[in-house]
């Protein structure tokens, strides 16, 4: 699969008064055309920072130290703010965790939707309006006329998130980045929104980066899963492989913490996430890992263990199968 987006060795620090927060280090992954990728990990592991970096939203005290973010082979990190503008909304759209906060409380939905078409893409008003109405219907907002005239406080969370999804479509984006798009919504609505994201993606053959701390959500909605831990990618692979043959001890623990039919006890992961100001030198999970040894104080590289399966661990649960490669 031709990669649409490729992140290479991304390193981001935050220069805070507490010290340098090493938020991301050596992050590399790619998203194929039409592919849906789940980015999973505990709170604070760097999922949102990764997403913000792709959007060009890393601001002081944050600094991108090194790496490349290739969109169709063009490095976005070399883009000026002016150039990034042409990417945002048109090539990459962003779906926020709290949809009602992502809408201007004093502007109508229509105003903002049409803006995505007129200001950002240079459409005329009439065309923009037609497109906005059509798109609202596509995201399942039947009474599109009325929604256009509504303000965010008049919408439910689910409706607001549909509007935000429509916003990305109006811009014509090829890649949707959804940062916990359902965690602020009613449980009953969550599945609907995720299903909608999936439908849109397959209809438009666009790609999706779904950020979630819920491995189950990622499994149901994605082709591939990337597991992050404390600013690093520890494992990535197709959903089936991650679930059947997890290679990283952290992934195993995440899976054990998932609720499942017949399971009476969920296993919590003992220990604490390391402080990113002063993380362990080698594997950042080593202080919580049962399999850790002396060797883990050396940084484990992200190694291929299957055609599309990689793990960063010296003692993986699954030995690299030479026969497969």
């Amino acid at each position, binding site marked *: 699969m031709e990669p649409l987006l490729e992140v290479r060795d991304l390193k981001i620090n935050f220069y805070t008064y507490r010290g340098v927060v090493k938020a991301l280090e050596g992050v590399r992954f790619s998203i194929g055309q039409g592919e849906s990728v789940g980015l999973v990990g505990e709170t604070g592991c760097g999922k949102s920072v990764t997403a913000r970096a792709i959007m060009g*939203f890393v601001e002081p005290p944050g600094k991108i130290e090194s790496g490349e973010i290739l969109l169709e082979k063009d490095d976005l990190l070399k883009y000026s703010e002016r150039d990034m503008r042409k990417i945002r909304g048109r090539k990459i759209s962003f779906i926020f965790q709290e949809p009602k906060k*992502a809408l201007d409380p*004093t*502007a109508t939905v229509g105003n903002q939707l049409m803006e995505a078409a007129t200001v950002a893409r240079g459409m005329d008003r009439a065309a923009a309006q037609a497109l906005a109405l059509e798109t609202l219907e596509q995201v399942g907002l039947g009474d599109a006329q009325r929604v256009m005239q509504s303000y965010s406080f008049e919408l439910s969370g689910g409706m607001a998130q549909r509007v935000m999804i429509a916003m990305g479509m109006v811009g014509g984006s090829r890649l949707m980045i959804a940062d916990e798009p359902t965690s602020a919504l009613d449980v009953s609505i969550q599945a609907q929104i995720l299903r909608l994201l999936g439908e849109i993606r397959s209809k438009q053959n666009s790609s999706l980066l779904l950020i979630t701390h819920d491995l189950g959500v990622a499994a149901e909605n994605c082709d591939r899963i990337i597991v992050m831990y404390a600013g690093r990618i520890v494992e990535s692979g197709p959903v089936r492989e991650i679930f059947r043959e997890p290679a990283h001890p952290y992934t195993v623990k995440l899976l054990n913490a998932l609720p499942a039919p017949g399971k009476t006890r969920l296993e919590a992961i003992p220990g604490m996430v390391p402080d990113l100001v002063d993380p362990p030198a080698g594997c950042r999970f080593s202080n919580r890992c049962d399999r850790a040894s002396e060797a883990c104080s050396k940084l484990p590289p992200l190694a291929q263990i299957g055609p599309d399966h990689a793990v960063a661990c010296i003692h993986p649960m699954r030995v690299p199968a030479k026969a497969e490669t």
Partner: protein
Amino acid sequence: MTGRTRTLAVIATRLVNAVIVLLVLSLIIFAFMRAIPGDPVLNLLGEEETTQAQYDALRIQLGLDQPFYVQYWNWFSRVLQGDFGQSLQTNEPVLPVIWEKLKATIELAIFAVILGTIIGVTAGTISAVKRDSIFDSAAMLVSLMGISMPVFWMGILLIIVFSVGLDILPVSGMISFSTIITPVTGFPLLDAVLTGNWAGVKDLLSHLVLPAITLGLTPAALIARTTRASMLEVINEDYVKAGLARGLTFNQTLWRHVMRNAMIPVVTVIGLEIGVYLGGSIVTETVFSWPGLGRYMIDAIYANDYPVVQGAVLIYASIVVLVSLIVDLTYSALDPRVKI
């Protein structure tokens, strides 16, 4: 209820409240005037050569011998009919004179409000966008001074620098003796513009500048600080990021989504400042010998001219009530969540 009838109902309630406030206020000022030292009868007759008989006769003629509540009722029932009585000193009817003086005050106040709002909002916006820049630090320092400096002191300082020191602006008054304005509306500056009297406009403006700055600076300082704080808060909102995320430039986001939201608390502050503007206008008019209602009222207080003071206070209070109603209406126009 539809939105419109609800709005009307709210306005009606507000007006009823306003009437109650004005009623209580008029009672207080009525009592207050009679409690402060001084005797209007003696002021009129002069202390010497006045017999007790003359004194009593005038007192009865003015109705000041009546019990308090009778006096109040006599005054109040006429006010309801639009008759504010006559000045004890000049015998002129109070209301027309107040209206004439009020025009000068309105001219000054409007300029000060415009000046204060423009300076305040602009400085606050630049400060927020260029946060921690030299401009920001300087503007915030000046605004702190603006807030802490008493109005009269500010006025005197400006007079010393611009009128006495640099000698580029007049010291006081509203107009030079040599300037003649043909009356149209009674607002001199407006009339000068309407009649195309540009020399007159220039003369009036040169008189207006210093008092307007004096009066506008304290509110400008407060507006600048409010604007800055409000902008900084709004700039961090998700919907601003969302604006950028759909491809707007920062400036487009600023104009289309930040400004309006950031102005909501600013409008509240401007509304609250109206009382400060009017209070400040009384001081400013005194410092600059501005022929407005404030100075007229101060003179009337010294002369124990009861009807004039009562009338002026009532008018001031009505303006505050009216303006705050207008501010609330503006507020609901800015923020769709607020339906008044």
